């Protein structure tokens, strides 16, 4: 992990999936299936497997670190991370202990994306007020980066008890637990990631990815203004790979429709249509098609935005395990090698992502 390698990963929210008769599987079966999917991902050469954090009946990712530890025990190479850890409503000390321990059991393969998340059920669940979310995230990111970079930590804040000359174990080897900041398009969040000297992960779930180019420029300019070196930039988007474009559309469409119908009702979004689905495939943020179609699009967007990391949020919705395994197999064996080939001359920031989070001095209030 010492060269400026491209990272091509998978992200999941642990959707409850259905069996072949259309019935939802029990949660424990679903969770074990995700462990199997990660094991396959490792065996076909995928760089990372990253799990979200939600507390909802349709998502089984409420304790990513436990699933990742199980995966660690059955894999050798794949990096194990989150997408995203809702740091605003967690205790940074606990996040540190969980993931520093994961890093140990996985022999240095743990990573994090921290953010606010776009769903907010964790706020009432853990007794936080959503109105405080900016302040919560700022304070918790401040404490978390200190735990990563400068133990023992002396710290005080508004939302938890102070720490005085505190060591939190296990200590991390230098450069371990790369921590990215996930953002959805807010310029203030981009500047914050730069201020803390943390790599940037763009969550792009709709619309043309090229519109993020100005935010990428803002991030670079802000890093420079805060005195940090260039840092990696990644992107998370939804997709599905099958043998042909048509097969990928046929398999993914009903589950995408179902998922976004639900979101439209809950969140006031526009209802999904086949026209929008196809427009998102063609010009937007869906990576759905044959290995060549998906690889070409990933490579084009990585080149356009200067990305060194791409996470495919694979197989949106309740799609059965068997079809999820099929897409992981194609992504690892065909899409990733093709993306690497297409980007063979691609210049990415000359820095190791595994050193990015801790290799610079924190200047959170500069």
């Amino acid at each position, binding site marked *: 992990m010492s060269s400026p390698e491209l990272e091509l990963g998978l992200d999941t929210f642990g959707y409850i999936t259905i069996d072949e008769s259309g019935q939802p599987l029990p949660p424990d079966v679903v969770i074990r299936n995700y462990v199997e999917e990660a094991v396959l991902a490792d065996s076909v050469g995928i760089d990372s497997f990253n799990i979200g954090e939600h507390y909802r009946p349709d998502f089984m990712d409420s304790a990513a670190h436990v699933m990742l530890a199980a995966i660690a025990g059955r894999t050798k190479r794949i990096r194990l991370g989150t997408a995203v850890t809702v740091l605003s409503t967690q205790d940074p000390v606990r996040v540190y202990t969980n993931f520093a321990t994961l890093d140990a059991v996985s022999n240095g393969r743990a990573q994090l994306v921290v953010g606010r998340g776009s769903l907010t059920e964790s*706020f009432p669940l853990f007794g936080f007020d959503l109105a405080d979310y900016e302040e919560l995230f700022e304070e918790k990111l401040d404490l978390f980066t200190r735990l990563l970079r400068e133990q023992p930590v002396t710290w005080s804040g508004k939302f938890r008890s102070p720490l005085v000359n505190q060591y939190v174990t296990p200590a991390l080897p230098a450069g371990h637990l790369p921590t990215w900041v996930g953002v959805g398009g807010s310029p203030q969040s981009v500047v914050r990631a730069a201020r803390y000297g943390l790599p940037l992960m763009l969550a792009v779930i709709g619309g043309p990815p090229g519109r993020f180019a100005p935010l990428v420029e803002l991030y670079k300019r802000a890093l420079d203004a805060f005195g940090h070196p260039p840092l990696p930039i990644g992107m998370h988007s939804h997709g599905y790979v099958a043998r042909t474009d048509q097969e990928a559309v046929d398999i993914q469409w009903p589950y995408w429709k179902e998922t976004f119908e639900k979101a439209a009702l809950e969140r006031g979004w526009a209802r999904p249509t086949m026209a929008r689905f196809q427009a998102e495939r063609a010009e937007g943020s869906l990576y759905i098609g044959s290995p060549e179609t998906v690889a070409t699009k990933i490579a084009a967007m990585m080149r356009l935005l200067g990305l060194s990391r791409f996470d495919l949020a694979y197989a949106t919705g309740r799609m059965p395990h068997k079809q999820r395994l099929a897409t992981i197999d194609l992504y690892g064996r065909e899409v990733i090698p093709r993306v690497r080939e297409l980007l063979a001359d691609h210049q990415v920031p000359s820095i190791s992502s595994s050193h990015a989070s801790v290799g610079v001095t924190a200047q959170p209030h500069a």
Partner: protein
Amino acid sequence: MPSGETPELRLGIVGAGRVGTTIARAAIAAGYDVAISGSGAAERIALIIEVLAPGARAVTTDELVRHADLIVLAVPMHRFRNLPHDLFAGKILVDAMNYWEEIDGVDPELATAPAGTSVVVRDWFPSARVVKSLNHVTYYKFDAGRRPHGSPGRIAMAAAGDDRAAVAAVLQLIDRLGFDAVDAGPLEAGLALEPNGSMFGVSYSADELSALLWPAASSA
């Protein structure tokens, strides 16, 4: 950049986030003299404005009010009550905000506003000439979707307000920004432009938007 000698081409945008900076880019392209403010000192948003809306000036909200008579309010909805009631006295105030429980938290007044959230905004700023607009089309369409007046396939935006002269000014703003402008009627009609409304988040032509706003008239 215009010197600001044409008062109707001076625009203020309160809010330097995703929406505010995107509207600022479109307004600069349309020839407006744009001032933009965040919360607090102008230096806090200077880099954001320099990179995301070059040509706009980062100012304090007080300076912004002195700069323009046409002001877009594009802060997260849970923040508008931090602004004083009389801040926008006599100004045309375009309410481009949307209430999102997942961002703003549970706000019973906004969640249940029977005539839409812009009525709550007007009640907070009673001396402002509030118009609801620029809120119902996906924000990045301000970049990707703007077209010169008369272009085929132009996207439409609606404006709703009780001060008819203010609505007329906002319709002109919409057209200059690159979109067909549709008068949606009184401020209460803005309810239909909010999340969960049939016009929200979808790009429609002026005819389609009018048909959604006035179904009886279009079927007659």
